[in-house]
Structures are given as C-alpha cells and as structure tokens.
C-alpha cells in the first residue's frame, strides 16, 4: 500500500512538472510579439519609431485641431450632436466628456518615443549616427506631443508671470507610475530642450518629410517660442525654415488635405495601401453624403471670410447649403477628402508666424512681414490688388498679418492659441463671449487621470 502511495505521489509529481510547460501559452499572432523579444535589432527599433510617428495622427490628425476650433470662435456645432464635442463647444468639458483622444494618443506617442530612447543602446546593428538620428526623431515627437497636450489642458504660457501654474505631466521615461502635474514653465522648458536637441541632430531631408527633419524641428520650435512670446527666437527659427529652400510656397489654391511642396512635416494617406490619416477632420466634411457636424460660424463667414472682396478663399474653401432657408449652413470644403494628407507643419503657417513675429519682436522687421502678407494675398486675390504698401503703418501690417493668419488657417485650430497667446501677453481678448483665460477654455482631464497626486482643472460654475 505504502509503495503504491509513493508511486502515486511520484507520478503526480511528474505530471505536475510536465505540466508547467503546457501552462505557458504565448500569443501566437503575426501581429503580436512578447515584450522581451520585441526590441532586439535596429529594424525593431525603426519599427517602434514608425509607430511613434504613426500615432501622431491620433492627436494632430484632426483631433487637436477640431477641439481647438470648437473652443474658439470660428465654428458652430450642428444641432442635435450628442457627444463630447458638445461639451467642448460649450466650453464645459468634464471628466467624462472631454477630449480624451488627443491626451491619450499624445502620451502613447511619448511612451513610444521614450522606449526608443531607452532601447537605443541595447539593440544590435545600429551605428552611432543612426542611433543619434533616431534619438533626434524620438525627441522631436516627444516635444510636439507634449506641446499639443499642454496647449489644450493647461492655461497658456504667460497666464502667470512665472508660469508656475499647473501644466501637464512631463514623461521622459516608460515607467508606469502616478505623477503630479508639472508647471507650465517646466513643460515648455522640456519641449524646448527636446526640440533643440532634435534640431541639432536631425538631417535636412528625410523621406519627403513624412519623417522629422532639422526643418521640422525648427518649425516646431518656432511655434513653441511663438506661444512663449519669444518672438525673436520664433522669428529666427521660422526664417531658417523658409530660407532653407526645402519648401516651396504654392501659388495656386490647394485643399488643406493635398500633398504639396509646403509640407514641413506631414502624415500621408494612401489609397494603395488603404492607410488613412486625418479622419478626425471628417467632422468638417461636406462632400458626398457627409453632413458636417462642425460648420463655419455664420457671422464669421459673413464678416470675416467674405470681408475681402474678391478673396478666392471664400469661394474655394466654403459652401453654403440651403441658402436663404431656415436650415442654411456654411460648410468647409477644404477638408473634403477620402485619403487626405495632413500637413502637421507647413510653410504657409510658418510664413504667417514669421510675419507676426517680425512685427512683435524687439527689432521690428516690417519688410519681411509685408512680403509674407503679400505672398499670401497675391495668392488669395489672384493678384496684387490687396497687397500692403511698403509704407503701411505697423498696426496695419500687424492687423493684416493676423487677419491673413486667421483666414489661411481656418479650421486648423491656430486661432484659439493665437488669441490665448495675445491675451496672456496683456491684450484684452474675448473668445466667443468669454475672456481668454476663462476656465472653460482649458480642457478637463479624463476622470481616471485624477488622483491624490494629480489635480483636475477647475470647472466653470
């Protein structure tokens, strides 16, 4: 009996130990790889970098832009919409109805960038030059992702004198941990550091600008300095980009979504591969059976867009539906595309940025500003009829620059951040009925983000 028991125990033991391997089942999927095997080679790292680029579409593929527009004064929301766009439009986002997408996707981009930086020394077959470039690209992406989030989820730079008001979490590693919010000053400092390092490393050309270049880093830096009221540096960076000659100003009209020579950093759809980016601009679309949920504010259409007689943009980029009827609305047409290209950074914007910076920097460069405005107007009016004279007053030039900047970038979200920048610089700015620093103009964090370390944004009462 005793023997049998021993044999039984022995057999059971054998079974158990044999079972251990039966109980390890790893996912078998061409689409999945174990974490420990994922990043081994240069190619692996390159694919991770591609993924970091890929997720840019999650925030700069329309989400960031449309959220910015909804908060601002250019657009109205279609009646009867019932998602978080309503809260954003009404400037009353809550932990449950907010722009989670921009936030989440930006931090996913940041995680991927951090993993690149953490693994760069561990992979095989990578030259130091290649490693340096990948690090530059990762830092570029980390920088622009933080920049997207901080503009929507915190009061603007300049809201407090020391910029010690609450910003967002700076993530420079892949650790999963609860963190408090950094100050806006710290966040901008980190962004500038990342983009400056990227600028120093990145090459001048990189696969037709779907990857980051020196110029993309400079353009992004120009935007950041611009937002920081550092117009000197903003001007310099913009000027370097424009003067590089890498990008050509397009003189005839093109949709925002067209793949043009103006793109400094872009995301590209492909009908061949089925790749789609920029789908979040779909809320503007009015082609085919699309009924736009975001429409041009009627007064903006009447008083701003159509203000310039003969402005071709008014007729090319907008369409009035049911004119004269009670249900009349004005739709954007420049986002109508099944397979759009998204120019995350582009020459027209950088030109207008340079023009405004030129007028605002300590040593005003009116000539450049006028030239930039006139380039734009030449195109918009198909001729020089509305060009500024070289003798135009400073105020007139600045106004012209700002008008053109608003008209050219309509729907792209820049207007809101321009207004906040000017408000935080001391101008008296009202944005659709509320002051530029109204709490509702800052997007609320998702409810699960808030914890004992992390404070939510105040909500309007």
């Amino acid at each position: 009996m005793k023997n049998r028991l021993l044999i039984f125990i022995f057999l059971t033991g054998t079974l158990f130990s044999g079972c251990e391997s039966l109980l390890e089942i790893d996912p078998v999927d061409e689409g999945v790889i174990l974490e420990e095997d994922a990043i081994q080679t240069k190619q692996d790292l390159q694919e991770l970098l591609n993924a970091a680029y890929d997720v840019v579409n999650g925030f700069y593929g329309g989400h960031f832009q449309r959220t910015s527009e909804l908060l601002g004064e250019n657009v109205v929301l279609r009646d009867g919409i019932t998602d978080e766009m309503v809260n954003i439009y009404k400037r009353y986002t809550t932990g449950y109805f907010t722009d989670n997408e921009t936030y989440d996707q930006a931090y996913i981009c940041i995680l991927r960038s951090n993993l690149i930086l953490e693994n760069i020394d561990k992979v095989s077959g990578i030259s130091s030059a290649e490693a340096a470039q990948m690090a530059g690209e990762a830092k570029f992406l980390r920088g622009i992702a933080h920049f997207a989030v901080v503009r929507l989820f915190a009061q603007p730079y300049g809201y407090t004198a020391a910029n010690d008001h609450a910003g967002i979490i700076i993530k420079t590693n892949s650790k999963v941990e609860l963190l408090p919010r950094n100050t806006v000053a710290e966040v901008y400092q980190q962004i500038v550091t990342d983009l400056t390092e990227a600028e120093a490393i990145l090459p001048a050309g990189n696969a037709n600008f779907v990857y980051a270049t020196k110029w993309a880093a400079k353009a992004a830096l120009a935007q950041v300095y611009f937002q920081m009221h550092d117009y000197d540096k903003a001007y310099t960076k913009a000027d370097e980009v424009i003067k590089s000659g890498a990008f050509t100003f397009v003189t005839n009209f093109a949709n925002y979504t067209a793949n043009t020579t103006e793109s400094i950093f872009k995301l590209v759809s492909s009908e061949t591969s089925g790749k789609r980016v920029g789908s979040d601009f779909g809320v503007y679309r009015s082609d085919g059976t699309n009924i736009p949920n975001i429409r041009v504010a009627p007064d903006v259409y009447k008083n701003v867009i159509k203000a310039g007689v003969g402005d071709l943009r008014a007729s090319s980029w907008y369409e009035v539906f049911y004119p004269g009827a009670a249900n009349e609305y004005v739709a954007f047409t420049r986002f109508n595309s099944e397979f759009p290209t998204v120019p995350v950074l582009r020459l027209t914007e950088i030109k207008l940025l340079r023009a405004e910076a030129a007028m605002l920097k300590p040593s005003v460069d009116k000539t450049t500003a006028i030239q930039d405005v006139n380039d734009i107007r030449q195109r918009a009016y198909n001729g020089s009829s509305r060009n500024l004279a070289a003798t135009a007053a400073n105020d007139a030039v600045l106004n012209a620059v700002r008008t053109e900047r608003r008209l050219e970038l309509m729907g792209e979200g820049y207007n809101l951040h321009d207004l906040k920048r000017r408000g935080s610089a001391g101008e008296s700015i009202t944005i659709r009925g509320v002051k530029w620093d109204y709490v509702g103009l800052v997007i609320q964090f998702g409810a699960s983000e808030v914890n004992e370390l992390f404070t939510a944004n105040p909500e309007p009462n």
Partner: protein
Amino acid sequence: MALALLLVNFAQAQVVSLSGKITDQSTGEALPGVTIVIKGTTTGTISDFDGNYSIQVEKGVTVLFSYVGYLSQEIQIENQSTLNVSLKSDIEQIEEVMVVGYGIQKKREITGSIAKIDSRDIGDKLSSSFESVMAGQAPGVSVTTGSGMAGASSIVRVRGVASINSAGDPLYVIDGIPITNDIFGLGGRTGGMNLNPLSSINPNDIESMEILKDASATGIYGSRGANGVVIITTKKAKGKELKIEFSTKQSLSTPTKKVNMTNASEWLQLYQEAWENDGNTGIPTGLPGGMTWEQAQKNDTDWWDEVTRQGYKQEYNLDVNFGIAKGLIARLGGSFTNNQSYLVGNELDRINTSMNLNYAPSKTFNASLSSSIAETSTALPGNPWDGGLGAAMGYALPIYPIYNADGTFFKGGGNSANPVMVNELRDENNEELRTINSLSVNYSPLEKLTFSLTGALDYMNFNNKGLEQGAMRSSGQDYSWENNRKVYNWNYNIVANYDFALQNDHDLKAMIGHELQESRTTGLNKNWDQSREIIENAEELRDERWRFISFFTRFNYMYKDRYIAQATLRTDGSSRFGKNNKYGYFPTFALGWIMSEEDFLKDSKWLSFLKLKASYGITGNSNIPNYEHIGTYKLSTTTSQEYNDSPIRYPEKFANPDLKWETTKSYDLGFEARFLEGRIATEMAYFFKKSEDVFINVAISSSSGYGSQWQNIASIENEGVEFSVKTNNLTGKFQWDTQFNISTLRNEVTDLGGLTTEEIGGGTNDTRILKGYPVGTNRLVRVSRIDPADGRPVYLDKQGNETKTYKFEGEEGFAVAAGKVIPDFTGGFTNTFRYKGFELSALFTFSYGAQIYDSSSKRQMGLASDWNFRTDIFDRWRQPGDIAKYPRMSREGATYGKDGEQWFNSTMWLFDGDYIRLKNLIFTYNIPKQIVSKANISSMRVFLVGTNLLTFTKYPGADPEVARDHDDPRDRNMSANVSFLTPPQEKVFTLGLNVSF
C-alpha cells in the same frame, strides 16, 4: 435453541400458492412489471401486463413488492392465497439521484446545494435558448432574459455577482465538457442582447439541468466554480425497444408592451413649447434633420409599427430510440426550429441532429457516445444592437418621413434615424455550425473500483456577415464583411471511484481524477469596401488559446446512514495565470446530518425526512482574457496599419506575473425537510460568499501611454437566504401541486484596494463600483422635486441642500450612490392542477425592491433634441403652480441646471422595477391511452403555452425584466439593471403536440 427454532420452522413450512393483482394506489390502474420477491431469497416473479402475478411461497415469509417510482411494500404471508396490492407512488423519491461534478450522488446524501430542472420543464416552455427556462425555477439562480430578439441570451447569475470585469456567468458543462459560452469572444456585439453561443443547443435534447450553487457542490470545478456550475445532461438511449417520439410547437409572438412615443403633432407641440419657454418667438427653427417647420408638419411616421410585426415560430422534433445488437442501443434525434421574432428582419433557423450510442456488453464495461450537430442561422435587424427597435423609441422622429418625395430614403436625421432604411439597406447574419461530441467509457475491474474516461470536443464555426449598401454610406459604395471565429474546445478526464465497502455502519467512497482542457479560437475578419482601390481587406486575428490542467479528489463518508461528511480538493493550473501563481488549490468540506434517521424522529408521523447540512469551501473564477499576464508588443500586419509603407511595432501591455484567479470563500448552512409522507417538501439555505482578488481592469494613468491592466484587487460579498417549498395540496382524482421559491441577496463591494471609482471605470449608463455598495450601483444627482414656480428641477447637493444648479462629478459634485441594484427578493410560484388527462400549470416570477435606471428616459424625456418623447412627458410643468413629474420643456441645458449639458444623470430616470409576471401558463391534455393506442400510439399530448402573458409592474419603460445589449462581460455584471432602447421581451402563444409510438 437455534436448532430448535429451525426445526420448528421446518416443521411449519407449508407451501401455498399466492396470487393477486397489483395496482397503482391513486389511479387504480394495473401495474405490469412489478418485482415480487420472497425476502431474504432470490426467489421471485414479476407481474404480467394486466398486473397479475402468482408465486409459490411458504407460510410466514415476507414478500417484497417493489417497482421503480413506487414505495415498496413488505407483506407477511399467513393463510391468504389471494393478495391484491396497491402500490403508492414514491413522491418522496428518496433514491432520486443527481448529477454532480464527475459523478452522480443520491439526493439524500448530498451535502451541497443543487437545483435540478427536468427535461419536461425545459421542453414545453418554448424558447430559442434553453437557459431562459431556469427563470423562477431555482432559488438563488437569477435569470434575466435579454430581449425579444430571436436567440437572445439571458444573464444568469448564481447567488449574486462576485465579479466586476470578469464574466460572472456560471460554468456550463454538457456531458462532461465545459462548453464555450463566451458571448463576447465571437466577434462582437451583433445581437440585441449580444450573440448567444447557448442558443444553438436544442432544449429538446436536454434530459436534465443541475445547477450547482454552493462550494461543496462547485468545489470540484475549482478555479472555475465560483459563479456556479450548470451541468447539462443530454438525453441518452434507453432500452432496446423501438420508441419514436415526435413533437411540434407553433407559436405567435408580439412584444410584451408597445412603448408610447409621441406622434408628429405632439412632438412639434412639445418642441414649440421648449422653444417658447426658452424665450424665443415665431416659428421654431433648429429642428433636427435639417427640417423646416412646414416640412416637419407634413409627416407623421409611426416608426414602431414600421419595424415590428407579428412573430411566428415553429419547431419540429423527431427522436427514435432502438436497439442495434446485444448490449448496443441508440437514440437518434432531429429537430428544426424557425423563429421569426416580432422584430422586422430578425429570424433564427436551427437544425439540430443528435445521436447517442450506448454499448454495455457486460456488467463491468460500458461506453457511451453522444454527438450533436447544430446549424444555426440568425438574420439580424439592420441595427442589431437595439433589435432595430431602438430608433423607434429614440432618434427616429415622427416628423421624419421614411422616403423623400423622389422615393429615395430620407436620411436627414442620419442613417440610424431611418430604421426602415437601415433594415432595407443593411443585412447582417450570424451563421453557426456547432458540434458537441463526447465519448465516455466506464470500466469496473472490481465491484469496489470503477474507472471512467471521458473525452469531448465542442467545436464551433461562427460567421457574422453582412452588407451595407452604398446608398447609406458616405462613399456611396457597398461595404460587406464576414467575420469568422472557429472555436476548438476539447477535454479529457480520467476518474477513478473506489468504494471502501467498510463494515459496521461506515460507508466511505473516494474519487480521484485528472482533467485537461484546451480551447483555441481562431479568427479571420474580412471586409470588402467597393470604394477602395484594393477592395478586399482581410485580418487574421491572433489565436485565443488557453489550457487548464487539473487534479481533483472527493471523499464521501457516511456513518450509520445519517452522518455525512464530504471533502473535495481541486488543483487547477492555467495558462491564464501569471508566472508567480501558476496553480491554485481549492478545498471544500461539508457535513450533513439526516436527523430523521435518528430514533427520536424515525417514527414521527408528520416528519418524513430532515437533513441538516453545512459547508465551507474555496472556489475560484478564472475568466481572464488570455495572455493578460504577458507583456506584449503589437506589429502591423496590413499595409493600412503601416506608417508610410513601413512596418510598425509598439507596446500593447506590460506584464503582470502575479495575475491569478478570483478567490471565493463560501459558507453554507441549510436543511431539507419533508412532511406528511412527502406531501410537503421544503428546502432552505443560507449562504455567505466572500470573493477576494476580484479582477479589475484598472485604468492605468493615460500619461503612461498604457490603457489598462487586469489586476487582482477588489473584494465582494454576497449573502442570502433561499427558500423553496413544494406541496401536494390535493391528491386523488383532482390534484393540485404548488411550488414556491424565494431568495434574497445582499451584494456589497467591500474593498477596492484604494482605487477611485474613476480608475476602475464606470459601466454603461452611469453604473459604478463603489465601496460599500452593490456592484453596478448608479451614481446620480438626486432630484428632490420640480419647482412649481418655474418648472425647473431642484437637485440636492451632497449635503442634501436644494439647489437648481446641476454639478455631477468632482469634489463639489452632487453625484451620490443612488438606486437599488439588487432586489429585496425574487422568486417563482408554480401551481399545477391535474384532472384525468388534463393539466394546467402557471408559473409566476416576481422581483421586488430593485430599481431600473432607464437611460433612454434621460433622452426621451430630457431636453428637446433629436429624440422622440415618451408620452409620460405629458405630466410636465407648463405654468406656475403646476405640480408635475417632469420639468418644463427646454432646449437649453441651463434650464435644467447646467449650460452645455445634454443629458442629466439624475434620479429622475430611476424607476421601481418591481414586477410579477405570468411567465408561463401551460395547459396540457394527455389523450387517453384507450383512444390513441388504436393508432399504435403509446402516448399523445397536446398543449397550449402562453409565455409572458401578463406583467404587473409600475415600470414605465418597455419591460421591467431587462438586460440591455452590452459591450463586455463587465457591463453584464455592472449594468444589469439599466436599460437603453432595449426591445421588450416577447409575449408568445404556443400550440404543441407530443406523440410517442
């Protein structure tokens, strides 16, 4: 002395011839086949076809008359030569056996809590999915039938909800194999109540269902037993006589209720009132659907009527039982079901075939092979999640026409606001082939020892496919898809049973076994978009694969036929567990005491049986998604996932090596008692279940770049009392039986590991996990009243002060736990009357004390938007002084307390969900044998069944017995008492016929 006695006996031995007739005591009918044995010998005979017998006996002996299903009688023979015996049917069924895990046990010796449902209770109550018939029949088993869609699944919960993220369904075991019943693993949310893997099982093939409830019963299923186990035994071949059975059912169905929505003029009037209340004048504008006032006035569409119809179902079953050779018998079955529900475009067709071969060449060996094949095809309405009916209760406005003037479909309100168009232009079908096969071999080399080996395969090939016509797509081009899942689920188990056959009142049996189960699901999603350059897009999904390896043992000990002890232990290893917790151990221990065997009760006139039982045990739940403990990266597999035509890879989730099962510690106390020779039978049980390490799919801070991770975090308690009683109120010619059961439940989340409710995440329709409250408690702002002065809602802030501002979340928010998720009690009540061949049976189910959060009301009776109103809104504030149920009409959130808010999550939408429902009314007529036997028919039965004929409730929505469509298992746990545009259940009239040859 002994010798003397023997001599005396011998001297007196005198052989007589004894004969007589044996009849049934209650009906007086002759009983053929009764065994008549002289006690203490093997001498005996059996009664003939007319119940007559004759036997040679010696005077003074005792003769034993016994017959299956009847109480045996012992009669001592004196001088009589004729002895007529009337046997009494054994209503106590003391020897009733029940299926337990890996074996059967006598009911009287069972220490666990098990409910049994017999085949007839399943077969007659027509339903396209068998699990719904458990409703109201077993205390502690809550069954909520989802909706009126064909094949809709039910939410089944045994003794409460002990899980949050993980599926809380019981384990379903058919003929020894835990079957695939994951309603979310088959490619998503395609049904009104999700698709239902159980709907392919033919209820007519089920012999019995045993629902194991407590730890001592479910412990043998270890890490998978915590949510209860439903053991399904299919019908097997019986006897070698040829027996043919045919049955059919024909049914008509309608919804249990038509929800009252406003018509066009009412809607416009309400809109105008909102418009004017907001301070506007003139003809209202901003109408949804881009319509002008004049256009809107021209239409009046009753969408409900457009998307519902009279449902019709038919079912045919044919079963044959026969012998093939010596020791080899067979049962073959075939069935066809067609179920057109009351929802336009919704129809289920199912063909089932089944076979059982039973080979018993000797007493020591037998083998049984069961095999079933089901082919199910379900056509879904155009918009499946709400049965195509949701739009008619919501965003399809009566002011919208179906067609434009030019005959094209009206699309002004968006596609989904024209359900007629969606039904027309969008086709979706589920097609499923399923086969469940099991082979079981039993071998007894010794009387004391039995080995059994069971191997089974449950295979499912599931296709969800559909076509969306270009006319409803932005590209204008057709889009079609086909999503395929194949599930290979197989297991084997080896079990050895040993009966120690101890002497002196001791009885000890042991069982030891080993089991391995593996399941693999493959998936392929294909779609064809005619607007793409490359039209076909195919995506192969990763295999979902898991394995359990288990060892288990059970000891049953009984002393003096009255003191019972049972111990079980199971060890489960699973591929789903993290590295640090590969094996779990699940012990249980139970005691029973059959008090009625004690001398002081044995001769009681009124008490015929009394058993007390107590158990403690640990069980688990391991419904974790596969690979959840493993850290992974994802790779692009199609060009459309690439970046700039280059492949990508990125982190998906990080590892959790500690991931393990949920642990439930259960305590049970109960008794079973029968009085007055079994005319009253009652059972009562108290349970307390403490579940720890409950999974939460924790929201990891988004700033980490990760989404969420499964962790063992929470604790949940379930506690309740179950009571059931069966009585034979009247016996004799007119019989009346009553069955009543009732159960209570307390459910409470007791620990959340410090997580905030936000980190855990809410369920659909504002349900929450809150410490100190039941799983899925609503978190709402309380509405105190409607201010008669201005018609605005008055809310209560956290401190209970009245305010007209609405502020939901955050530190200063007013949202508090509200409503009652768990009913005070639920149960069922059946009365059965029999007279001659007639039988009338009525089952009422009831639920009291729970509240339903109707998320549709929030929109149907909130701001004037692009939703239709329910006519309840007529009870609203209109002018100062009005005392009304609902506030003033408005289009502005500010009116209800918060600018910009569309919908207000408040207690205004919380309704009492009490109901009493006549679940089934069955009228049966057994046509007398004398009549049918002329046609060579051995029995024939016709029956009429009414399902959900009456519902008594104050709930204003569609149906108080509601389970909405869900996105995932968590919602099925958390959002069980919410409704959102869920189609009501069906009211069915069925005519059925059963014939046996």
